[in-house]
């Protein structure tokens, strides 16, 4: 790990160099009144002045829908065409928030804790993450409560901390990061000794994770789930904007003799997610599904995968149509 300084013009030059290298660059863009990651060619397209993109960058390593493999039926036989990792283009994610970058770890834990996931890993291998530390936050942010921070470098290949002069402190965190720096080495100059922490937003810790974990251990039969989930509509908005939610469905797209098997996002909040063919539904009520969501992220995952399934990005709270504020709910559980 190495720390450098880059000037405002240096950033522009470097960005152009990345684009010119042929890599796809995804960055937050403000359009349709929302800020979200989109392919960009120019630095000027990148959005400023926002707290959080609506969606996380999860889709870059776990697309909404992707082809697991395709097949063709010929004379009663079936020919399979495997997913080709080479089909995934080199991608650079620009201006990722630390809470998003931190989401890669729990996401990969889910995909690889047992058998490995070829598709996810192929995307991961081809993706470089340039995160920007956070100088602002809103009332939904709580990364500091879930082992994160506005300057958390976990999951990032490079992290930039913007300075008042338009330049930035550059933390080069991985070989992938070094390779990106190498695209335009001259713009990176010696670190000026600025303290990164000075430029980070101050975000107080809102709850104690261990305490929450301990409470959840005994909370399965608590009435809190019913109370909290009453207004929950059972949509998948929270899951789909979440950087770590990985529930998926496997579906068939068949056209005559050809077809492909597709993996697409699913959500544990959907009423029919666990419905058995027999008609029995183990998680019949919304309260059970809400409990699953919270327990999975804050209890099962730490226990099973040794990682918290929440990065404190606050997207679910912002996206929820009925203000199911996760921070509020977790805080109230911690206080129980």
């Amino acid at each position: 790990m190495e720390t450098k300084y880059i000037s405002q013009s240096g950033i522009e030059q470097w960005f152009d160099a990345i684009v010119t290298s042929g890599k796809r660059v995804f960055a937050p863009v403000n359009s349709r009144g929302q800020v979200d990651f989109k392919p960009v060619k120019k630095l000027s397209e990148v959005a400023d002045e926002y707290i959080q993109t609506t969606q996380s960058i999860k889709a870059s390593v776990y697309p909404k829908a992707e082809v697991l493999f395709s097949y063709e039926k010929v004379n009663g036989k079936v020919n399979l065409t495997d997913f080709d990792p080479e089909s995934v283009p080199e991608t650079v994610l620009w201006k990722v928030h630390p809470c998003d970058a931190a989401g890669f770890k729990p996401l990969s834990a889910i995909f690889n804790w047992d058998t490995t996931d070829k598709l996810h890993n192929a995307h991961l291998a081809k993706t470089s993450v340039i995160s920007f530390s956070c100088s602002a936050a809103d009332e939904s942010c709580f990364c500091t409560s879930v082992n994160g921070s506005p300057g958390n470098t976990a999951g990032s290949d490079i992290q930039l901390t913007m300075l008042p002069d338009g330049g930035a402190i550059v933390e080069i965190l991985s070989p992938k990061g070094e390779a990106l720096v190498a695209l335009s080495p001259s713009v990176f100059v010696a670190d000026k000794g600025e303290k990164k922490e000075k430029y980070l937003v101050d975000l107080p810790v809102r709850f104690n994770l261990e305490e929450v974990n301990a409470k959840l251990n005994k909370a399965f039969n608590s009435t809190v789930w019913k109370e909290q989930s009453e207004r929950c509509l059972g949509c998948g908005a929270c899951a789909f904007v979440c950087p770590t939610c990985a529930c998926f469905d496997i579906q068939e797209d068949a056209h005559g003799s050809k077809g492909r098997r597709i993996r697409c996002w699913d959500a544990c909040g959907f009423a029919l997610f666990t419905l058995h063919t027999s008609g029995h539904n183990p998680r019949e009520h919304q309260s059970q599904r809400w409990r699953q969501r919270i327990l999975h992220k804050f209890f099962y995952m730490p226990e099973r995968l040794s990682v918290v399934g929440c990065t404190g990005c606050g997207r679910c709270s912002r996206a929820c149509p009925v203000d199911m504020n996760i921070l509020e709910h977790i805080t109230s559980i911690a206080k129980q």
Partner: protein
Amino acid sequence: MSSNTDFEPKIIAFVCNWCTYAGADLTGTSRLKYATNVKIVRFPCTGRIDFLLLLKSFAQGADGVIVSGCHPNDCHYTSGNFHARRRWIAFRSVLDLMGVDIRRIQYSWVSAAEGSKWADLVNNTVADIRALGPYAEYQKVADYLEKEGYNEEA
């Protein structure tokens, strides 16, 4: 309008059993000739025809769709065609709002006695769709998983 002389539109016709299917039978019995582009799917009644089937037809590569049944008051089931008519009024409105090319859906009433009308309907619809060209705008997005990006098909 570009002339697509080589373009053979694929057209699917959803017809009711009692009037238009029988009308098309009469076209045959009368040996009237028409274009081969149209393939008929038989329904008991226009009231049975699900709007989703029309959408699916376009996704499957149809360039045009014919929906035809009994004239008002002639429905074998009294009112299936009236229900269908309302459904199509609403459907056209929604499709038009969404920018789907509603010129590609031809609605018609063809009775069991109108063999020649059926032939004309087919021929005119084929000519209309040929003039409009292939419905590439719709078909090209049929297989897309994303508009662009991670998994785009070649």
